[in-house]
């Protein structure tokens, strides 16, 4: 009985030792993995800050001004163009009869000439009658 217990104890010992080794190497592996990720994060962070710096260099006011002067025909803001509140904005003009305006634009706005029975000849263009 005692021998059996001893055997069990020895097995436990070997088992726990193996387990400890296993844990140890797992930890080492995870540590390495973590360090790798840390380095990646650091590299990404650096890349972000480099890009931020580059973006700032590209959008630096001095550079944008030179480009705007060269390629855009903008003029400096006139103080009259600023609106402090919504009340300062000019009212949008009343649009009125939208369909009527469209017809007018197409030249179809004039009253339609209805042919009458007594003046059938008047339907011919007046110019044609001229001697």
């Amino acid at each position, binding site marked *: 009985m*005692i021998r059996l217990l001893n055997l069990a104890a020895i097995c436990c010992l070997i088992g726990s030792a193996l387990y400890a080794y296993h844990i140890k190497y797992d930890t080492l592996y995870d540590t390495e993995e973590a360090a790798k990720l840390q380095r990646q994060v*650091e590299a990404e*962070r*650096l890349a972000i*800050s*480099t890009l*931020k*710096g*580059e973006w*700032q*260099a590209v959008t*630096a*006011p*001095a550079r944008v*001004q030179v480009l705007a002067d060269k390629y855009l025909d903008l003029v*400096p*803001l006139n*103080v*009259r163009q*600023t609106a*402090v509140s919504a009340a300062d904005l000019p009212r949008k003009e009343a649009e009125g009869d939208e369909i009527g305006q469209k017809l007018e634009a197409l030249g179809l706005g004039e009253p339609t000439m209805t042919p009458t029975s007594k003046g059938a000849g008047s339907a011919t263009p007046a110019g044609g009658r001229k001697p």
Partner: protein
Amino acid sequence: MTDAARHAMAKDAPPPRRIGRIARMLGNLLRMHVDKTSARILLVALAFGAVYVAIMGRLVEIGLTSQEQASAHRASEVVASNPRPDIIDRNGEVLATDVQAVSVFAEPNKLVDKDEAVELISSVLPDLDARALREKFSKRKGFVWVKRDITKAQRDEIYHLGLPGVGFLDEKRRIYPNGNAAAHILGAVNTDNIGIAGIEKYIDSHGLEALRDAGLPLTADSLKPVQLALDLRAQHALRDELEKGLEHYKAKAGGGAIMDVNTGEVIAMASLPDFDPNQPADALKPENINRMTVGVFEMGSTYKALTTAMALDAGKINLNTTINVGSNLRYGRFTIHDYHRSHPIMTVPQIFGHSSNIGTAKEALMVGVEGHKAFLKKAGQFDRMRTELESAEPLYPKHWVELNTVTAAFGQGMAVAPLQAAMAVCAVVNGGHLETPTFLKRTEEEALAKSTQLIKPITSEQMRYILRFNADKGSGKAANAAGYYVGAKTGTAAKIIHGHYSPNKNFTTFTAIVPADKPKYLVLIVYDEPQAVPGTYGFTTAAWNAGAVAGKVIDRLAPILGVPPRFDPPLRPFPDVPISVTDLKM
């Protein structure tokens, strides 16, 4: 056979009795009898004790010896990367940041063939001085830099040379993406990423250096960005207008600042000529000094604002007091006279509007020499201004007599940094709170907590009224940008050349506040020796150059800085002043 040989033989073949004894002893040792345990425990304890002693001994050995080996490498590591916090403007725009750079180093004591190494390295880096490199390598040092900040391609090439004892270190390199824009505020760093000027130097002397010396790990994210009061858009616009003015008026130098009058924050500050902080060597050139804080100048008539405020605050005069400016003031061989005189008797606002030296000097004399000195001291004009940047000690006569009070009343005979004068003018218009200017972001509460009361709030309102009057009808018309209700004062000081005031070399200043009834910003423009150009009718006085530029700056920046334009003048801009500005005669 000798005795010894016999003895050895006996040892080789031990008698059977002895074998039996050893077996019994081992048997006893492994037997599980209670009477034997104490001896066994002792044996085991001794064995473990010995193991622990061995481990401790090894630890002590490691602690004592390996330090030297590690330190050389660690030292190079510390030198190599000095991360710095980013610098951002008040809206979060990046003003300075670190980027990755590669540097190549060598360990001369590990180099196999030094001449070959020099030859090969200089073939990849042709701009390197081969002789200097050979000299570096010949020293018995563990670590020398070969070159800082090389390109990735160069790194690969050197790597493929396969030289033992040559290695690379990732370093941080400081870049300033906006170039010259805020050069004087930001300053610069040296190759080791340590601040040598401006805010960069301030960051080092306020904490960063201590952290570094303590050996704490510094990474980019453990360092909080430093936020400045600066507004990059305003900074660019100010510098741009200043530069255009500098070219147009062919001035020797120029400077400008925009301050928030209520918080003392410097929203923008430029001094020309300036430098690119990416080329740090230029930062320390004498012609590139920051004229706004390190240069001292006679501020001219800008000082009249202080004198008038002082006399009003002391109750010696009020807005209706009339002063006779009809005759010149004589002090021994000195005569004080006015540039432009219209009436012999003038009121206080008129004296200010006509920029009368005689009138202002008389106002100062009413307060007296001691009172004047005490006021200037209280306004911070006698002491070095303490901001985050370096600033110069003001120059003033140590033996101060009545004549000094007379001249200092209109800004001559004492020289201060322009920003220092701006600080006092801010206090004059903001309700009397004297706040030391700051380049870091600050709230109004923080500013007020550290401020001192220079003048009474009512005096401040009277001064705003006078400044508005001057911008409306007096010498400050140049910057009266439509819609912004500007208040302003010109200042022209003749420069002293060989001990005499020069008739045509001027230092011109222009101070404007926007809007005059409830000031938010102060704009200060200065030019050193501006010339008369077509369009200025031969004048080189402040209104024609500094004033014109100030007007443009206000026009351009007021919408950006959120100052709303008003096309109808405010209803009661100065409630405690009975006569309205428009009713007052010039």
